[in-house]
Structures are given as C-alpha cells and as structure tokens.
C-alpha cells in the first residue's frame, strides 16, 4: 500500500519538469507534424525550381492547388461519384459483416464452415476478381459496389465475430441464471460487448471501402465505363496532365483522412464512458 502524501509546501522539481514536458508534448503533437508537412511542401517546390523540372513531370504545389481550384467542377463531381460508391459499400459492409458475424455467433459449426469462404474472398486480389464480376454483373454501380464491398467487409466480419465470442463467462452465466433467451443474450450482452471490436473493424473498413471504390473504378475505368475520381486520374495520365493527376490524388487522400477522423470520433463518442480504449490516461 502506498503511504498517504502529505501536502508538500515546497515545489517539487521533478513534478514541475514532468508538467512542463507534458505541456510541450501536447503542443508538439500538432505543431511538429504540421511543420514537417510545410517543410516537405516547400522542399517539393524548391526541387521543381532548382532542377527546372517541367510541369508535366512534377508540377509545383502552387500549380496543383490552382488546378484543384480551376478544375473544381470536374474533380468534385467525380469525387461525389466515388463517395457514393464508398459510403454505399461501407454501409453494405456493415450490414453484411455484422449480419454474417451474428450468424457465425449462433454456432461454432456455422463459423467453422463458412469463415474460410470469407478468408478466400479477402485474400484474393480484387483486381483479379474484377474481370469475373465484369462478366456476371451488368449494372455499372452494382459492379463497383460489389468490388468495394468485398474489400471492406472482412475487417468488420472478423472483428465483430471476435467481439461476439469474447463475452465474459460469468456474464453469460448470469444471463443463463436469469433465464435469458438466445435473442436476449445477443441483444443485451453479446452485441454491446462486441461494440469496441466492431468499431475497430469499422475504422479499417472505412479506409478500405474508399480504396475498394477507387480500385474498382480503375479496373472498370480501363474500359471507359466510369466517371469517378479514378477515371479522372487515368484520363489525366493519358494526357500527361500531371497537375490534375496530383489534384485528384490529394482529393482522394483527404477524403480518406476525413473518413478516418469521422469514424474515430464516432468510435470515441460511443465508447468514451465505459471502454478502456477511450479512457484518458491519468497522471
């Protein structure tokens, strides 16, 4: 047991140092990455100027920004198409992933029988599957959705399955003692217990659904059937329009970052009252 600390009138040097370093760290967490980013962009600009690199090889950051502004109508229109696929596929991944994991949780046998299929679907590169999808599915949107879904659903399925199976044994006994039905146990115990796992999977799936959407557009776009951001990139590549290529690329990464931040926030808001992962560290 620790001794009770009496009120120290003197200033504790060590504590002061620790408080100072904590304060510095709080500020540094934002300032340092920002400074590095600014430095990198500045270097990029300088390299273009110093080496007299032509714009169609490597455009200066300013030019990229200008293109982003000039081509805003075209680029954001395409972004909207990509976003639609991304969110729809994420939604389907949530429904499919959670639905399948609930099914898996009903019996070890179901899980053992069907989990390998999910793994096969996950490990086979989507680019390799796409030609098949292209043959079997006519609707363009459905094609892209299916592709993005295959990429995104696995982390949700795998995490939620783990969560549903990680329920405290005593709590399960408690439910049994109180005569809970299967459905009650699922609803009041297993699903809430799986929530942190599900949200972890969702964070990964959010990024993957964007990647899935873009990759699907790429493969589909090669045959000139898409109007998403990927097709803008392909187009710009053919025309050696490097500034637009960069602008589209930046839009995609920004979208990915926003998706990640939003899902992190959602996760934090849901878990902050009870889950260890959302606890602030106490000094």
């Amino acid at each position, binding site marked *: 047991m620790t001794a009770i600390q009496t009120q120290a009138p003197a200033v504790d040097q060590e504590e002061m140092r620790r408080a100072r370093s904590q304060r510095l760290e709080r500020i540094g967490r934002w300032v340092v990455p920002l400074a590095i980013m600014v430095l990198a962009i500045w270097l990029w600009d300088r390299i273009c100027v110093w080496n007299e690199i032509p714009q169609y090889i490597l455009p200066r950051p300013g030019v990229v920004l200008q293109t982003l502004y000039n081509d805003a109508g075209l680029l954001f229109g395409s972004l909207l198409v990509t976003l639609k696929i991304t969110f729809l596929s994420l939604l389907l991944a949530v429904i499919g992933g959670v639905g399948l994991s609930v099914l898996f949780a009903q019996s070890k046998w179901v899980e053992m029988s069907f989990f390998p299929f999910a793994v096969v679907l996950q490990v086979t590169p989507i680019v390799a599957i796409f030609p098949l999808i292209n043959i079997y599915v006519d609707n363009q949107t459905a094609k892209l959705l299916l592709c993005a879904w295959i990429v995104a659903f696995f982390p949700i399925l795998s995490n939620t399955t783990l969560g549903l199976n990680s329920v405290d044994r*005593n709590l399960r*006994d408690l439910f049994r*003692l*109180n005569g809970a039905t299967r459905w009650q146990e699922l609803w*009041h115990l297993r699903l809430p217990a799986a929530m942190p796992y599900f949200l972890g999977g969702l964070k990964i799936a959010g990024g993957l659904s964007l990647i899935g959407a873009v990759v699907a557009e790429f493969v589909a776009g090669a045959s000139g059937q898409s109007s998403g951001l990927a097709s803008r990139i392909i187009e710009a590549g053919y025309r050696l329009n490097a500034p637009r290529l960069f602008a589209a690329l930046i839009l995609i990464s920004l979208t990915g970052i926003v998706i990640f931040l939003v899902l992190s926030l959602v996760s934090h808001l849901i878990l902050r009252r*009870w*889950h260890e992962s959302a606890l602030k560290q106490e000094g």
Partner: protein
Amino acid sequence: MEYIKAATPAIAGSGGPLLALRAVGKSFSNGVTALSDVNLTIREGDFVSFLGPSGCGKSTALRIIAGLTTPTTGTIDWPRRTGEQASVGFVFQEPTLLPWASVFDNVWLPLRLKGVSRSEAAPAVAKMLERVHLTGFEKAVPRELSGGMRMRVSIARALVTRPRLLLMDEPFAALDEITRFKLNNDLLELWQEERFTVVFVTHSVFESVFLSNRIVVMAARPGRVFEEVAVDAAYPRDEAFRTSPDYAALCRRASDVLGEAMRINSSGAA
C-alpha cells in the same frame, strides 16, 4: 414469492429445509473429481459458508446449487420448489457488471430479462439501491465506481428479483479489508431484514465466522465436506462482536477444523 419471516432475527436457519444435496458428486472429463459424496441440507434463513482450501470444490458446489453445472452423481432436492425455476441470486467473485450500462440498468437487468419494463422496475431498483447505500449513483457507469461500490451493485442486482436463495462465490476476496468489513456488516443487515438464505463461499476463516450460522469446512482432492462447524453466536453481529472473546474462540475452532482438513489432504497426497 414468499419467504419465511422469522419472528426474531437472533435465530438463524430456523425454517424448514430449502434444499438438500444428496450424495452429490462431480467429475470432470479430464479425470479430476471436483466433488465427492456431498450430503448437506440447507434450511430457510440459513447463512451457510463453504470454507476450504483451493480445489476443494466449494465453487463447484455453488454452481451445482445454482443449476449452472449438473452433478455427475446424486441429486438436489428442493422440497418447496414450485413449478418454475427456483429463484436464485448469484454474486460472482468479480462484480461482473455490464460495463456499458448504468448502475440502474445493471440492477434492472434480471427484471428486464423477465420482461419487466423500465418504469415497472423503477421502484424495485430504487429500493434495492437504497438498501445497498447507492442512492444517487443510478446514472453512473461501473468504471466510475470504486471496487466496493461495484460489488454493492452486484449484490443489488442479485437481490432485485427477491430470491429465496443468494449464492455468493468469494464476493469480497478482491476488496481491501476496510471495505470488506463494511460490506460484511451491510450484508448481514440485509440478510436479517429480508430473511433470504445465503450460501457463501470463502477462503477466510474470519469472514465465515463473522457472517454465518453454519460453516461447512471442506477438504480437497477429492473435494468433499470435512466437518460442519456451528457458529452459535447471536445476531445481530456488529463491530463489537468482531473484537469479542467469543468471536476469537469461534475463529480458533473453525481454524483448527480447517487445519485438520488440510492436514488430511497433505498426508493423503504424500
């Protein structure tokens, strides 16, 4: 749900038999015999402690009584059990609360599973929380509470259905001594007022003597009842009892019996 109201709280276990274990044994598939030939009658209003070393099967016995495990041999008789499932409350070694649910929702849970709505359950939950001195904490979630308070929530949850029998599996083992004493006192008070029956599993001689009117001392390998010690000190028992010579003498006796139970075990193993 009706249970025997004892006229005086001073006499424990004065009711008729609540349940009887007859030649109960339990063997696991790995060949370990957790329990062998346990015969024991628990009366209405009893406060029975199972005291013994690790591996003596006291938790297994508790799980068998709860119906969480089926015995390999023997039977359990519930003489007055009416048709439906016996009403049993269970308190685990850990508080075992739903971490995402508020104190209110945790205590409501057993009623909720029986189809009682939030508003219907509210008076019973509020009363139970008052009994365990947690009024005002309804909206807190478990991690905002101390270990002792969590255990109080767990006890309130076990008692909210007004069970005739409360089973407790080393509930206070993880708490510090001060909190433990306080919870011992409060548990006794609750027990005397509500007149349910308690089966209490513990490692602690002192705790078992303070709480119970009967101590069932168990021996290990195989788990079995070694000897029963009657604690005939009157209730209510309070802090004064804790420091009385009577208490010390009873502790010594229980401790001697436990010592014998463990000696037999070690000579048997040698």
